[in-house]
Structures are given as structure tokens and as C-alpha cells.
């Protein structure tokens, strides 16, 4: 009998999830697994994700790969799927609690943020104490990734966090302000402009992902400051890595969505064949697919790869 | 005798246009008072002010000697003043019966009506049909027809029937026969006289002088936003009335006022 599996992503408009889906599809074709993909309409669309889980149950799938748009909101439906005998694997971000899923293949988004934070602090050196930082976040609804990356960056940069479960409550004067970008170029540019109007001397820009970094760069370019500002980002998509190479972005934390998806499909196949579940990475409660800092200007004490290597590993 | 409906010094401006210019008005108990005047003289504005459909900028209104200020047509209706507006005021998509009972629906007797507030459709439809038959609107094919499917004249008939059925103190008719056929107009005039016979006074706005002179007890001549004079139809001819209202002839002193 044919093994069927489901992939449920947050949205299907973000290239990250598109590539994740392509990775899963390639692996599924290789293993002879039939794969159906679902996605929410916007980040934070739990109802569509719940509906997708139910559809998978109705469809008689063996397992579900899910990137939850809120790590704790849909745990009940995940339980329902597991009760119905499906293997549920969380991709990209662990659920809360972590053991709500049978297994997790994820990037540690907090670490991804921390890496670029450390890199930025290291690059500035002593000047880090006088940095003026712009924080370009995702959305006012503060989805989990948004918070983890933002807080990771601040921690890595050496800024004291307020409540680690939300962004925007830090009091450090080096933070010029937070603005939201919707994770695209348009939002990135507008947010950057707003913060520049607030303080034109910004010299460090954290961005939630590479498209918003590209937008922020355009804003800086229009006032001729693109050379004296450090932009850091997270994702590691191929255009993003090229942008690191071109000097648009200083450093980015690269994730491996193709790996996550491929590992997930394999796990479902194995489980369908012999009933064994994958085990987590040593010392963590999930299987870490790793994150690497991509930059051509390495800093001591922060492990990184260069853009040539980054381009080999990039996901789309 | 004290007027049943009286107004003093009503004014109403629309931007640069003065529709009512310090206008007085008196309706005596049991009479049919016609209001005549040129197009745009402010007749509709006057009766809208009297019936609560617009709020005058200044002026006072008295019903039965009591000062009133109707802030909505509902308030006027509750006080017993029923109006047929020139625009008819009906909900096009709703049925004839629904329109006739709008705002004073009948409820089913017993628990269905009191607790479940269910409408008594059969009763409303029966009464609606009766009222229309009284006016001879037999060409209406179906009492559940939407008002929008009626011809212009049929609509006007429905509006008049509604006012006649429910008015208790004063009935105001703004050009009730404008779109009606000869036969239907006749019936409306008969109906007006029936209503007066019941002791209810009527305000009738009309451009049709023969109609006015046939039924009116007194005629209020409106000109440039105010009452020019009030005349007795027995004392003047139709041409006199037309001459007063168009300004071709000077008005008599405020006779009968």
C-alpha cells in the first residue's frame, strides 16, 4: 500500500516554505511517498492549519509535517492527529511543549538571531557600545519566529532582554526603534525610512529576513548611507546569499529547509515501514538541522562560512 | 375655535435656498385644508416640518394646543399625525402588506405573539386587501407582490390607503392623486371626504385646482416659503387662487386666519 504524507506550512507565499515544499516533494518522489501540501493564508492563520490537519486525517495520511504558525495554538489538533494514528513531525520550529509532536526537525531561530547579533557586535568592536540599532520585525501580531529571531539578535548583541516572549519591551537606548515589514521588500523599505527619519545615524539594522533586508538597503541607498550601515538578516536563501556577497547584507544566518523537509519525509516513510520514530539531537529536545552564519567578513569567536560555501548550501 | 395643528414662525434653509421663511400655519378641527402654491414654493418642506420628517431651523408647532417637537416621523405618527409623502416612503423590495403595516405590525394572538413575537401575516394581508379594495385598486394582482413591481399609480394608491387606515388626529397628503387615474383619483377624493366625516382633519397638497375646490373647506396659499393668505373656496374662483399663488394678483388681507 502506498504511503501518503502531508506537509503543512505557515504560508505558501514565503520562498522559504516554497523551497521546503520542493525539498519534501523531491524526497517523496524518490521514496515513492505521495505528498500533499497545505498552507495557511497568512502567518498566524491557525484555522487553516487546523483544517489542513483534519483533511490529512480524512485523507488517511500516515504522517504530517507541520511548521506551526503559533507553536502552542494548534497542539490540540496535533494531538487529535496522533490519536488517529498519524506521525506528526514539527518542522522549522518546535511546538510548545516540544513533545506535542512525535519529532521535531528545526532550526533554532533564537540561535540564528544570536549568531548575527554576535557577528554585528564583533564587527563593530568597541563601537558596539554606541551603536544605533534599527529592528525590522515581521508583524504586529508577533508570531513565534519573529520573537525568537529578534530576541536572539539582541541577546547576541549584548542587550538586556525584557520579556523574552515578546519584542519591543527593551529599554536599551541603543535601540532606535522597532517597525514591521511583513517580511517583504516594500515593508522593509518603509520601515527603514521611518526609523531613519527618527534617527538618521542608525548604523546597525536587524531584519527578520532577506527580502526585508533588500528593502532596507534601498532606503539607505536613496540617502547614500548604504556603505556605512551593517545589515544583518536570517534565512540563507540563494538571493540572500548573493546579497551578502554583493555587500547588501553583512551577514545572514542560513537555515536548511530542504533538509528539514527531506528528513521529515524519510522519517514518515521509516515509521510507516517499521514503526520506529526518529530521535532528537543529543542534548536538545528536537533534531537540530543546524544554522550557519554566512559572511565574507568573519569575526573572531563567531563560527561562519563564506558566501561561496553559502551559495552551495543555499535553498532557493 | 382652537386650531388642532398650529405652527408659528417656521423657517428652514438648505444651503443658500430658503425653503420656509418664517411661515405660519393653522389647521382647524374636522376641516379639509388645501395647501396650494407654485413648484418649489415650499409646500413639501412645510408638511415635512409638521410631520417630523425635517427639523425646522426655528419656529414652534402646537398639536391640540400643546407645543410639540417631533424629532422623527414616528413621533408624529404616535401622536396621531399620519402622512403620505410626495416620495411615498415605501420599501421597494418588501410586499404591499409589509409596507402597509411597517412600524405597527400585528402580532399573533397568544404565546406565539407575546413570547415568540410572531407576526400575524394572514390578518395583515386580509386588512391590506380590504383597504386597497376600498380604494378600488383592483388591478393589483397579488398582495404579496413587492412594491417595486407596482406601477407608479398603484404605489400611490397603497400609500394613501396606509395613511387613511391609520391616521387618528391629522392626515397629511402631499399630492396624493398626482399619478392616479381618473377613477382612482375620484376614489381618493371620496376617501378624503369619508375621513373628514369620521371627524379627522386633513391637509391636502395638490396642484389640481378642480380637486382642491371640490373638497377643501379652506385653502392655504403658499408663496416664497410662507403663507400668503388663507381663502375660502366659496369666495374666490380657481383663477383667483392661481393668480394669488403666482403673484399675478395681490392677496387679500389675512382673511379667515
Amino acid at each position, binding site marked *: 500500500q502506498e504511503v501518503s504524507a502531508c506537509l503543512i506550512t505557515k504560508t*505558501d507565499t514565503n520562498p522559504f516554505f516554497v523551497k521546503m515544499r520542493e525539498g519534501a516533494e523531491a524526497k517523496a518522489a524518490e521514496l515513492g511517498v505521495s505528498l500533499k*501540501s497545505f*498552507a495557511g493564508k*497568512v502567518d*498566524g*492563520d*491557525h*484555522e*487553516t492549519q487546523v*483544517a*489542513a490537519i*483534519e*483533511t490529512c*486525517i*480524512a*485523507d*488517511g495520511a500516515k504522517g504530517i509535517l507541520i511548521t506551526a*504558525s*503559533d507553536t*502552542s*495554538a*494548534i*497542539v*490540540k*489538533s496535533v494531538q487529535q492527529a496522533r490519536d488517529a494514528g498519524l506521525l506528526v513531525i514539527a518542522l522549522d520550529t518546535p511546538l510548545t511543549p516540544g513533545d506535542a509532536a512525535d519529532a521535531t526537525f528545526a532550526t533554532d531561530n533564537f540561535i540564528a538571531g544570536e549568531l548575527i547579533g554576535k557577528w554585528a557586535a564583533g564587527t563593530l568592536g568597541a563601537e558596539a557600545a554606541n551603536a544605533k540599532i534599527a529592528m525590522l520585525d515581521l508583524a*504586529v*501580531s*508577533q*508570531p513565534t519566529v519573529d*520573537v525568537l529571531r529578534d530576541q536572539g539578535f539582541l541577546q547576541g548583541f549584548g542587550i538586556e532582554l525584557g520579556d523574552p*516572549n*515578546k519584542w519591543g519591551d527593551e529599554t536599551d537606548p541603543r535601540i532606535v526603534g522597532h517597525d514591521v515589514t511583513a517580511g517583504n521588500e516594500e515593508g522593509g523599505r518603509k520601515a527603514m525610512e521611518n526609523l531613519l527619519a527618527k534617527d538618521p545615524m542608525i548604523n546597525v539594522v536587524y531584519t527578520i529576513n532577506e527580502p526585508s533586508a533588500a528593502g532596507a538597503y534601498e532606503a539607505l541607498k536613496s540617502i547614500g548611507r548604504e556603505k556605512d550601515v551593517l545589515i544583518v538578516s536570517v534565512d540563507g536563501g540563494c538571493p540572500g546569499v548573493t546579497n551578502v556577497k554583493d555587500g547588501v547584507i553583512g551577514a545572514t544566518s542560513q537555515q536548511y529547509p530542504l533538509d528539514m523537509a527531506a528528513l521529515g519525509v524519510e522519517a514518515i516513510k521509516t515509521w510507516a515501514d517499521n514503526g520506529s520514530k526518529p530521535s532528537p539531537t543529543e542534548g536538545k529536545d528536537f533534531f537540530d538541522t543546524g544554522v550557519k552564519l554566512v559572511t565574507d567578513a568573519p569575526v573572531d569567536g563567531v563560527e561562519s562560512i563564506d558566501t561561496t560555501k553559502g551559495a552551495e548550501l543555499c535553498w532557493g | 375655535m382652537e386650531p388642532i395643528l398650529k405652527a408659528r414662525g417656521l423657517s428652514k434653509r438648505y444651503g443658500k435656498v430658503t425653503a420656509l421663511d418664517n411661515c405660519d400655519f393653522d389647521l382647524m378641527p374636522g376641516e379639509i385644508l388645501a395647501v396650494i402654491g407654485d413648484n418649489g414654493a415650499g409646500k413639501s418642506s412645510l408638511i415635512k416640518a409638521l410631520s417630523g*420628517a425635517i427639523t425646522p431651523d426655528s419656529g414652534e408647532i402646537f398639536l391640540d394646543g400643546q407645543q410639540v417637537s417631533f424629532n*422623527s*416621523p*414616528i413621533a408624529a*405618527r404616535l401622536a396621531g399625525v399620519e*402622512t403620505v409623502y410626495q*416620495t411615498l*416612503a*415605501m*420599501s421597494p*423590495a*418588501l410586499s404591499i402588506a*409589509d409596507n402597509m403595516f*411597517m*412600524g405597527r405590525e400585528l*402580532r399573533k394572538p397568544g404565546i406565539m405573539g407575546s413570547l*415568540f*413575537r*410572531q*407576526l400575524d*401575516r394572514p390578518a395583515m394581508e386580509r386588512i391590506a386587501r380590504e383597504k386597497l379594495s376600498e380604494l378600488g385598486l383592483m*388591478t*393589483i*394582482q*397579488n398582495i*404579496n407582490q*413587492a412594491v417595486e413591481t407596482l406601477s407608479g399609480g398603484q404605489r400611490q394608491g397603497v400609500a394613501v390607503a*396606509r395613511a387613511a387606515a391609520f391616521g387618528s388626529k391629522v392626515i397629511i397628503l402631499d399630492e396624493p392623486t398626482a399619478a392616479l387615474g381618473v377613477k382612482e383619483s375620484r376614489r381618493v377624493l371620496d376617501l378624503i371626504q369619508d375621513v373628514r366625516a369620521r371627524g379627522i382633519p386633513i391637509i391636502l397638497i395638490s396642484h389640481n385646482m378642480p380637486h382642491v375646490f371640490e373638497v377643501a373647506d379652506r385653502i392655504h396659499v403658499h408663496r416664497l416659503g410662507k403663507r400668503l393668505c388663507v381663502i375660502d373656496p366659496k369666495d374666490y374662483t380657481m383663477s383667483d387662487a392661481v393668480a394669488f399663488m403666482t403673484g399675478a394678483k395681490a392677496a387679500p388681507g389675512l382673511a379667515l386666519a
Partner: protein
Amino acid sequence: MSSDSDLDAASVARTETVATFDHEPTGLLSRLQHALHSSPSLVPLIVLVLSVAIFGALLGGKFFSTFALTLILQQVAIVGIVGAAQSLVILTAGIDLSVGAIMVLSSVVMGQFTFRYGLPPVASIAIGLALGTLVGFINGWLIARIKLPPFIVTLGVWQIALAANFLYSGNETIRAQEIETNAPLLQFFGQTINIGGAVFTYGVIFFVLLVLLLAYVLRHTAWGRHVYAVGDDPDAAELSGVNTRKVLISVYMLSGLICAFAGWALIGRIGSVSPTSGQSANIESITAVVIGGISLFGGRGSILGMLFGALIVGVFSLGLRLLGADAQWTYLLIGALIIAAVAVDQWIRKVSV
């Protein structure tokens, strides 16, 4: 056109026509057109039956299982409840863009009052429902008293309520397990009962009962008739003695209350309280209303049509998903479906033009 629910078909047939010079129309198609025309909510019903039949034929047992069919009901229940609120508003020729925001704000308040301030769940729920009604009242007051266009008022209130929701909740999700152990009442609408093999959640039952109740109220009470009259021609309604303001304010308040109930039902559905839920409830509820044949210009249509409209969207979404269509293809097809449904509706209405 006088009819606005399929209950009408009967009452129309009952009355004798006073005078008539009729010939029955000939031709099967135009007969069908006439039949459909006399009861507008029949159209979405037929579309619904057809789409169930088509997906059934394509998918077989996978689709025709009790699980899948009751699943559709569960999946549309929230949108359907919100759609009921939206229907009321649209019947008055308004539109309520704040439904989704009211829903999520109420659910957050129910959750936070229970967990942050330790109120008993029943009190928190009451406060949540009251809050929804209050926001609805603000909408209604601005629309009826200050006479602002509904689109703008609810656009503004939508943004305000959503921002307040994020600010108040601190983007904090309350987890399902916590609710289950400490305040199971919040998940009330998620409980299920089994009727002859089919599993229904209380949320689904609430949804269906709500629609039936509103259908009765709209058709058989004075208030219901006034809602139609206000939507049809507000000036005429006012002049003919309807207290338009009161009707409008009550409609928006009821809409707010129903949305707050939807917020409660939402907790039952996803288990947790999450401030990011419900962002597409506006568009989806409007889609259901429109596919259900209620006119956006007010005064025409039946709330039962909205029920079928919501189910049609549910059937298509699930059917296409089970067929393995890409999500974007699903959106594309739902887009085409919306246009097609209204085109059919228009064809039927042609009879009276």
C-alpha cells in the same frame, strides 16, 4: 422579489391573486428559472448539492465518509457563525469589517480574564460576550447616530480592535492543556456528541441553531421586517415609521454579540486562545454571505442562503485539498467559484428585470 427566504414559497402559493391575465411560461429552462426565482436560497442549496455530488464522484468514500462530511461542518462553523453576524449587517446595506477582530478580541478577553486575573470562566465568558456587544454598539452608534458609512466605521474599528488585541494580549497564547485542566468551559463548543455515527461539535450545533433562529426572527417578527426595510431604503423606512437608528444599533450590537460567541467557539475549535487567529474571517464571512445570495446593497436575500454559501466554500476547500490541489489553485478556484455563483444568481434574478 417579495420573498426573502424559502419559507416564502408556501405563503405566496397560499394567497389568491385578485385579478390576473396570466400565461404560464413555457420551456423547461425558463420554468426552472421561475422556480428558482421564487425562492432565492434554493440556488445556493442546489449549488451545494451539485458540488457535494461532484466531489463525491471524484473522491468516493474518502469524501462520502461521515468523518469527512461532519468535518466540513466543523470547518465552516466559525466562518458560518461570523457569517450570520455579517448577514444581518449586510441586510441593512451595511458591511462589518470588524467581525474577525471582535471575535479574536473577545476570545482573548475570555482567556486572559480567566488566566491573568483568575476570574471564574463563566464570568470571563460573560465579560467577553459583553465586550463584543459593546464594540458592536460603538459601530452601530457611529453608523446610526453620527451617520458615518459602515465601511469606514468598521474599517477603523477593525484596526483599533485588532491593535488593542495585540497590545492587551502581549501576543501571548494560552495553551490548550492549560485550558483543558483549569477552565474546560472555555472549550465548551469543542465538545462533541455522536448522533447515529456522525460526530457533531457543540459549535456546529450552535451554528445551525443560530441560523435557524435568525431565519425565524428575520421572517416572522416585526424587528426582522424592519431590518429588511432599513436595508432596502432607509429614508423610506424612517418616514414610514421604522426607528432606523434603533434597528441599526441593535443589528450591530447583535452582530458584535454573535462574533463574541464565535470567539468562544473558536477556543473550542483550536483548543487554545491565540491573538493571531481570525485574520481572514472578514473576507471569508463576506464570501459566504455573497455566495449565499444576499445582496450587498441590502434588503434582499436569506440567511439560510448564507448557511449554504458557507458550506459550499467548505465543500470546495476540503474537496480540492483531498484532490491534492495546491493551496494557490484552491484560492484561484474559490475566486472563480465566487464569480460563477453570483453569475448564476444573476441569471435567475433576470426573470424580474
